[in-house]
């Protein structure tokens, strides 16, 4: 059976109005009992929902028990290359046939991973052991909301609570099986998706986060916030990679800084915040092209400076989680 987005989320409950500002959360232990609950039209609904520690967490932990390393790809800023980097990690790691890789796309409103891995037309199948992920290669399993949309360009207009429910399903009900790596691609920001993934996976243990940035201060500003979030949430920052740093003109080989590191770029930020700097990846127009076409840039242009830089980052990342 094909899983489709319209019926993957059983409406457990339906709120009469949007949650108020200090809402403890309809699924929290204090649901219906907070100060904000008095006078809220949802009070009765929230009170009637099951309470106590989330009974799904042990199920998630069990489902992820055979996964060796779990890595989040994070950035406060959009468009810096989180999905590009996730796809590169997938290509690089899965080129080793002895490794089993999983990639999970948490960007629910703007999923890009399926396109970059060249599997947009696939759909997710439901069996009695759960949802089977979409296999890009024998040793590369992926999951994204994109596989469940009726149309490629359907908009997912969901508030946080619905996104959280889907993320939970991705962790609890997807048949990931045994993996060496599960790479989690995330949307920009520090909101529901980020809070939820940390909450749901905390017990199974997250190895840490790879933080992606571009060199200019407007991006670093948001990345600082993401690193602050990691600290608050207890997620280890494995390292930071600076993407799109420097551009070499294909015509005259002159090098320009398109996104100028006016405040010292990613490397300076790493020194300042005492986190490992994994390296810079130069801007190569062919990276975007390969991603658009769903092919591995690393296979197509193995000797390019960008490929070498990416592979170097992958090595450092593997080192940081104690692999190799």
């Amino acid at each position, binding site marked *: 059976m094909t899983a489709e987005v319209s019926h993957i989320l059983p409406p457990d409950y339906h709120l009469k*109005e*949007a*949650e*108020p*500002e200090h809402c403890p*959360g309809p699924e929290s232990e204090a649901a219906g009992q907070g100060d904000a609950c008095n006078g809220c039209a949802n009070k009765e609904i929230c009170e009637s929902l099951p309470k106590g520690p989330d009974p799904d967490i042990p199920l998630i932990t069990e489902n992820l028990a055979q996964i060796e390393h779990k890595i989040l790809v994070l950035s*406060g*800023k*959009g*468009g*810096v290359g989180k999905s590009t980097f996730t796809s590169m990690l997938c290509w690089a790691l899965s080129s080793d046939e002895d490794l089993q890789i999983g990639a999970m796309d948490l960007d629910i*409103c*703007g999923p*890009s991973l399926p*396109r970059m891995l060249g599997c947009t037309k696939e759909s997710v199948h439901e069996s009695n052991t759960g949802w089977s992920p979409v296999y890009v290669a024998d040793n590369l399993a992926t999951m994204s909301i994109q596989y469940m949309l009726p149309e*490629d*360009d359907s*908009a*997912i*207009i*969901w*508030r*946080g*609570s619905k*996104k959280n429910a889907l993320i939970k399903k991705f962790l609890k009900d997807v048949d990931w099986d045994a993996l060496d790596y599960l790479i989690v691609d995330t*949307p*920009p*920001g*520090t*909101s*529901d998706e980020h*809070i939820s993934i940390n909450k749901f996976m905390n017990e199974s243990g997250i190895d840490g986060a790879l933080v992606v940035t571009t060199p*200019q*201060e*407007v*991006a670093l*500003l*948001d990345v*600082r*916030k*993401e690193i*602050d*979030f990691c600290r608050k*949430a207890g997620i280890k920052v494995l390292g930071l990679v600076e993407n799109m740093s420097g*551009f070499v*003109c*294909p*015509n*005259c080989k002159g090098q*320009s*800084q*398109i*996104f*100028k590191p*006016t405040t010292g770029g990613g490397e300076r930020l790493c020194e300042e915040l005492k986190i490992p700097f994994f390296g810079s990846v130069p801007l190569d*127009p062919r990276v*975007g*092209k390969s*991603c*658009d076409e769903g092919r591995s840039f690393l296979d197509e242009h193995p000797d390019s400076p960008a490929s070498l830089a990416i592979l170097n980052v992958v090595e450092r990342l593997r080192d940081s989680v104690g692999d190799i």
Partner: protein
Amino acid sequence: MNVDNKDPPTALRDVKHILLILSGKGGVGKSSVTTQVALALAGSGYKVGVLDIDLTGPSIPRMFGLERQSVYQSREGWIPVSKYEEGSGALKVMSLGFLLNDRGSSVVWRGPKKTAMIKQFIKDVVWGELDYLLIDTPPGTSDEHISIAEELRWANPDGSIIVTTPQNVATADVKKEINFCRKVNLDILGIVENMSGFVCPFCAECTNIFSKGGGQKLSEELGIDFLGNVPIDPTFVELIEKQKTEGSNLVDLYQSQALFPVFQNIIASIQSKNIPSRVRK
């Protein structure tokens, strides 16, 4: 929430036009486009307000060189930060960034808190008389977008400017945003293609780093107006980063930028739609 109240928000009573800047994709330049539309309008003598509803990654204060400024609370509500006032032109800015003490600290909020903040931004900011209110948004189609659409439901906004970059990965997300606009009945004024081409400063050869023409193609495919191509121009980023040392106001400095005429054209296409003012005299 008062579902039956169909009156437009009183804080926007004297705002003639409301434009939203949207994109499904992050990092395509929503804040950069918002900033440049604002600079070009203010430089042409309009009164402009900029509202930043990207709560977890507000870029607008940095773009206008207003980091570490604060917003004051008056009896009527929050007073936005003033960037420029000369002749008839004015530029005022409101962002969550002004309400945070430390620029590095994160705002870790789930949906309900974001919704409440946006509601307050619409209700409690003292904009006064404005020709244009530009609303800069985060990527996606989630809490912030649903909330702003709900808050503006009876406010009769002019519509949205959709920003994209040329590559497929971006236009795919942007299509979702367009579908969002259609679902919530928000008019689309047109598409801007940002980062379309980079002119090498050494040999003047134009390289299409993020490919080219994706925005134009999208507008043809979906029957939406195309407002223009904006090339990558590192001098604009440099201007933003160094504005404090330049000695004059960003609005004036912007007029000698190569991108200024590009945005004048974009504004002219929007104005040629002759959307009536929200303020009835």
